[in-house]
């Protein structure tokens, strides 16, 4: 069925089917569109700063997709393709010098020409600006210089293969040097990049308005006059606005809302599997807080891998997906999505199956007192609550007594970073390069290793994965990393979300790819 749908999608250019298929993948709609019109996109929250160096949110990336192009992008297969660069980077044999050819003839929205010097200015700002969220990603960049007007040469401290993937995200966005000079820290209120649309205004909490940029190098392929991004946090309200026609695109729709949208003849559904993961993090050694040396925790779950394995074996990932998400997400058991263009991970059908008998046996061997009491910290969303309840019922059969503690998101992050938890629902929106899904979480004292994992062999593998460029060897390494994490059960991967985007049926040309962004560059109203 899924294969049939995929071939239908890729082979068929006029996709006029309505929001009728769930389970398949539908990333684009290539019907011809007319020029003109305003498109309103409902986002699930208000983006943070519109400054590529400082921005942190996924919704912010969606807005950037309309106005800030990057050196590289991904295509619908999750493969890296050039955007403001003209080809993939040339990497020296020792892996320490990276050469980027830059597009000629492009202009920023304020009219400043794009050149190698502008790229260097942006790269160094991303790396050095105090509070930059890009500093870690670009940490290995030692030097960046312009060689002539259209070549950038980057020198690295050590070989760093994920760089190209990083440059396909905000670290690869190039900002107008004129605007940076003029506005400095206030660039966030006057963002100026190379893009199909340029910034017009922002009313905090209400809207961000972009208009077609006549300076854009491919302006003839841009159809819409205006894009309005509106934050509407409630899924129900987002759907009501889609139905009433007040908005034309609803981003990040939950499975329940998608099911309702399916009954609506005027709406269509797009979706793509995400590159991220959702699961349960076990506190195996976080006694001193994030970034500190792991210590010893004296609970059955933390101290005995057999107990964790029993917990893992008690979970039926397929059933969890069916009950909580109407089967609209994908079961997962590793950090890397099988959709990843680089070193794809474990397919859902290859995940371990539920085995309660074996789980009970393992608990018996571990000699723990039954039931094993565990507290699960979840965020307060209804979905997370249901995940908790389903897990509670599943693991009970193996001998666990799971209690739930719903905690407001920011508080939960504070507490879990400090190590104040047994287990918690841990998730990540995903990165193109597998390293982005692995190193911060699994490396000893990694920036997001709230689990307290400290395994020198794993660290070595992660470092090797970051530094070599041979794709075959990288695949082997990430397979090995996945296997180690699976055997350790410190992070129990459960499912991968899908990016569901509901759009009005008279809109075509939008693109929904694995990075979860809605691309509107070529969108428009059908003829």
């Amino acid at each position, binding site marked *: 069925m899924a294969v049939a749908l995929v071939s239908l999608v890729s082979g068929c250019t006029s996709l006029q089917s309505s929001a009728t298929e769930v389970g398949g993948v539908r990333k684009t709609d290539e019907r011809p569109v007319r020029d003109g019109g305003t498109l309103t996109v409902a986002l699930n*929250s*208000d*983006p*943070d*700063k*519109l*400054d590529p160096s*400082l921005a*942190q*949110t*996924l919704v912010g990336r969606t807005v950037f997709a309309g106005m800030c192009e990057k050196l590289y992008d991904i295509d619908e297969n999750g493969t890296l393709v050039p955007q403001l660069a003209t080809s993939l980077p040339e990497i020296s044999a020792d892996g320490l010098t990276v050469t980027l050819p830059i597009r000629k003839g492009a202009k920023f929205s304020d009219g400043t020409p794009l050149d190698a010097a502008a790229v260097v200015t942006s790269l160094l700002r991303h790396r050095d600006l*105090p*509070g*930059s*969220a890009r*500093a*870690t990603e670009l940490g290995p960049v030692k030097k960046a210089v312009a060689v002539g007007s259209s070549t950038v040469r980057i020198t690295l401290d050590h070989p760093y293969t994920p760089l190209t993937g990083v440059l396909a995200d905000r670290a690869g966005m190039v900002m107008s040097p004129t605007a940076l000079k003029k506005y400095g*820290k*206030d660039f*966030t*209120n006057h963002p100026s990049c190379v893009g199909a649309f340029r910034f017009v205004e*922002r*009313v*905090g*909490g*209400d*809207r961000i308005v972009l208009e077609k940029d006549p300076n854009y190098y491919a302006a003839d392929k841009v159809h819409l006059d205006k894009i309005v991004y*509106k*934050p*509407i*946090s*409630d899924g*129900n*309200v987002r759907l*009501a*606005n889609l*139905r*009433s*026609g*007040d*908005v034309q695109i609803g981003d990040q729709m939950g499975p329940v809302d998608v099911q309702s949208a399916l009954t609506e003849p005027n709406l269509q559904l797009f979706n793509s599997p995400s590159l991220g993961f959702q699961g349960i993090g076990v506190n195996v050694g976080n006694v001193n807080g*994030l*970034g500190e040396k792991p210590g010893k925790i004296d609970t059955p779950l933390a101290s005995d891998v057999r107990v964790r394995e029993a917990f893992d074996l008690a979970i039926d990932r397929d059933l969890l997906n069916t009950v909580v998400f109407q089967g609209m997400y994908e079961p997962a058991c590793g950090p890397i999505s099988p959709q990843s263009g680089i070193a794809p991970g474990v397919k859902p059908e290859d995940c371990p199956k539920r085995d309660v008998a074996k789980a009970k046996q393992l608990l018996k061997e571990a000699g723990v007192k039954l039931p094993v009491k565990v507290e699960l910290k979840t965020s307060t969303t209804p979905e997370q609550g249901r995940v908790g309840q389903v897990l509670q019922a599943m693991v009970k059969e193996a001998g666990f007594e799971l209690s739930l503690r719903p905690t*407001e*998101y*920011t*508080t939960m*992050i*504070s*507490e879990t*970073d400090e190590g104040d938890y047994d287990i918690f629902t841990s998730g*990540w*929106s995903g990165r193109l390069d597998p390293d982005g899904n692995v190193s*911060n979480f699994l490396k000893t004292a990694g*920036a*997001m290793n709230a689990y307290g994992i400290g395994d020198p062999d794993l660290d070595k593998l992660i470092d090797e994965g970051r530094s070599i460029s041979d794709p075959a060897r990288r695949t082997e390494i990430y397979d090995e990393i996945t296997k180690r994490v699976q055997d350790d059960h410190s992070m129990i991967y459960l499912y991968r979300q899908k990016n569901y985007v509901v759009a009005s049926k008279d809109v075509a040309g939008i693109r929904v790819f694995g990075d979860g962004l809605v691309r509107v560059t070529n969108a428009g109203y059908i003829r």
Partner: protein
Amino acid sequence: MTKFLLTRLRQSLITLILVSIVVFAGIRALPGDPALALAGEERSPEALAAIREAYGLNDNIVVQYGRFIGHALTGDLGTSSRTGLPVSQAIGQALPVTLELAALSLLLAIVIGIGAGVIAAVRRGKPEEWLANAIALVGLSIPTFWLGIVLVLGFAIAVPVFSASGYVPFGTDPLDNLRRMVLPSIVLGSGLAAVVMRQTRGAMLDSLSADYVRTARAKGLSRRAVVGGHALRNSLVTVVTVLGLQLGHLISGAVVTEQIFVLPGFGKLTIDAVFTRDYATLQAVVLCTSAAYILINLLVDVVYSVIDPRIRLGGAK
């Protein structure tokens, strides 16, 4: 009158200062680090440290409070840690929305509430009273969120007369403005209308059975003059008090209504600020709301000292 006003102003100012301290401390007592909320998904220790430094979160709370008040007195309410926009700008954009919503809801509540209350009192024991009471009970019992969704389904989707969301300033397009504001005003005003109706009815019943009304009737005044001129005027003191108190509820009710109808007002600003631990915005919003609340109470005092001079004399003693 001047002395009465000065006394009440002084009291209001002291209240406002106390509120600012409580708000400031309360917000900082919220669990969850604002730097974490701000750093979002990607939180490296370096980024967290830089955020704390940039927003002065490392200073002790007294220093932070002093800085906040110092800036606030010069009209600088700070910068939103999330969007990087000036807080005063956000408030300037949100204020007209909430004020319009509150004003329309209040108007609706006064017209419907007082009208229905008077009818219910005058037509005591008749079907009109029963109907008015039943409607008031429904108005009080329906949850705002549910009413909002039902109205959107009915009048923005099934029969698209009104708009489901968004705000257009009245000056830009009056018709579109009303198209967007009618449903939220009904949602927000309905509960208040019910309260006003019940208060009006009760006060009117008291007045109508009072001696001065009987005297007025005996003098042969018209029914209209008796009900409107004598009974209603005397009943309004209670109603105005209740309206004043309920205005506070109107502001808090706006939080939910603005979420449903995606109105970029104070309520939405507050909720967003809470979830992102945007201290600067949150304390400014709460402080402004408190100031409005205090001001409303002051106005209520003034208004009913006008309606009933005995109150003013008592307060000035």
